[in-house]
């Protein structure tokens, strides 16, 4: 059993707790144990608080990292925003002694010190690198044959690629491979790399712009015949799920695309119960997908 500090952030525990359950249970199947990061706060959001004041963003992020350092565990996250903030803050602090000293002066006020002793890994990285597609495939009890899933990567999991270090962000394959390892089909769709629309404070201040991007994304997935869309990010997940309700209510659209987090889809393939994975707690019902699973 390997331990990771599971940094929850805001959206996962406070809006989509099904993601939290599905992630803990799915990773446990592969001997990965997720520990609580007691007293963690908002990461804080990279494009929101980073846009207001980068210094505050860095100091609060460093505090969150320090809690995990005190647990002697690497961090994992289920939100691209949390991942971006913690991974980037860790990267910047490890690469600048001056920055680290300045941050530690601030953290000293609350009796904490950043050491630079851990790595920050997205949960998708754990699944692809620690577990591996073949092992996932071997553990599947209920292959998702015939299911067409549209993989949405989101932005901050892969970009900026120079900092994230997962290779090129133009043609990623990791999510598609995970979908395939569960027996489902990963459908291609137009402009697959398009942002969900929510980031950078656009959802909070310019909702109609965010929704316009979401609608384009959904239209392209529908055109490709997707039965569901799969996300690696709680914030994209919220935008793509609740965004459909907002588009339906405000703009008379009729979107009904089930939104499933990668570890929820995995949980289904590993034989877990949809209700226990929180798949009945979305804004847009997932029944149309669940009915199709053999």
């Amino acid at each position: 059993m390997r331990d990771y500090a599971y940094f929850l952030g805001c959206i996962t525990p406070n809006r989509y707790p099904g993601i939290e359950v599905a992630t803990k249970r799915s990773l446990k199947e592969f001997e990965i144990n997720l520990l609580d990061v007691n007293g963690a706060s908002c990461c804080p959001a990279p494009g929101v608080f980073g846009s207001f004041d980068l210094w505050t963003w860095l100091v609060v992020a460093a505090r969150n990292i320090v809690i995990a350092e005190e647990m002697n565990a690497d961090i994992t996250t289920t939100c691209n925003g949390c991942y971006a903030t913690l991974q980037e803050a860790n990267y910047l602090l490890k690469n600048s002694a001056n920055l680290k000293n300045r941050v530690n002066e601030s953290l000293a006020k609350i009796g904490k010190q950043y050491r630079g002793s851990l790595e920050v890994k997205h949960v998708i990285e754990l699944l692809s690198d620690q577990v591996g597609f073949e092992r996932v495939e071997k553990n599947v009890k209920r292959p998702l044959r015939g299911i067409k899933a549209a993989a949405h990567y989101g932005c901050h999991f892969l970009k900026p690629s120079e900092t994230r270090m997962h290779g090129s962000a133009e043609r990623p394959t990791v999510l598609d491979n995970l979908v395939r390892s569960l027996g489902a089909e990963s459908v291609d769709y137009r402009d697959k790399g398009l942002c969900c629309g929510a980031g950078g404070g656009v959802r909070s201040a310019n909702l109609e712009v965010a929704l316009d991007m979401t609608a384009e994304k959904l239209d392209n997935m529908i055109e490709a015949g997707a039965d569901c869309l799969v996300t690696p990010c709680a914030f994209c997940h919220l935008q793509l799920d609740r965004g459909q309700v907002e588009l339906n209510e405000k703009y008379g659209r009729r979107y009904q695309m089930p939104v499933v987090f990668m570890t929820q889809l995995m949980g289904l393939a590993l034989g877990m119960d949809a209700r226990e994975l929180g798949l009945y707690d979305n804004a847009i019902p997932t029944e149309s997908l669940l009915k199709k699973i053999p």
Partner: protein
Amino acid sequence: MPSILKRQTIREGEKDFVNEVIEQGSKIFPKDDMATLRACIQCGTCTGSCPSGRRTAWRIRQIFLKTLTGQRKDALAAEDLWNCTTCYTCQERCPRKVKTTDIVRALRNLSVREGYLRQDHAKVCQLVFKHGHAVPINDDVKAVRKRLGLSEVPPTVHQYLEALKEVIDLLDATGFRSLVERKE
């Protein structure tokens, strides 16, 4: 309307603005990364890649032009500056390796310092001052958590009030509260 692309413009503009943006970003990022701003040749790959620019008046190339020509007020007051979702597509594709998205964050930091913080964004800040979360828990989700076998309140600052106090103390110490709460 005469073009702003005249030599004269640069002379009339605030020449120090480029330096100001680079300095602001360099509080966090390596200075060499921020100085890539000077390498912009206005090719437009950024705007051509921008998903927000397809549907709004936000033109990232234009904001770089305004920055390079010292159009400080125009650049910092632009409402469209807040239509960037920070998707990094432009930064990935820039042929001059300009750290475009990170420079946008530095520009926004200056914009907030000039008092252009949006009301909706100020509200998000208030949520963090109060709860330590930008998206706090509510009763409906507490019920879902309980049903799913999770703790009703997550083990974050929501559950540990002394930890919440640490976060609030940090937000005060960095000057963040006074920055976003100040009245013009």
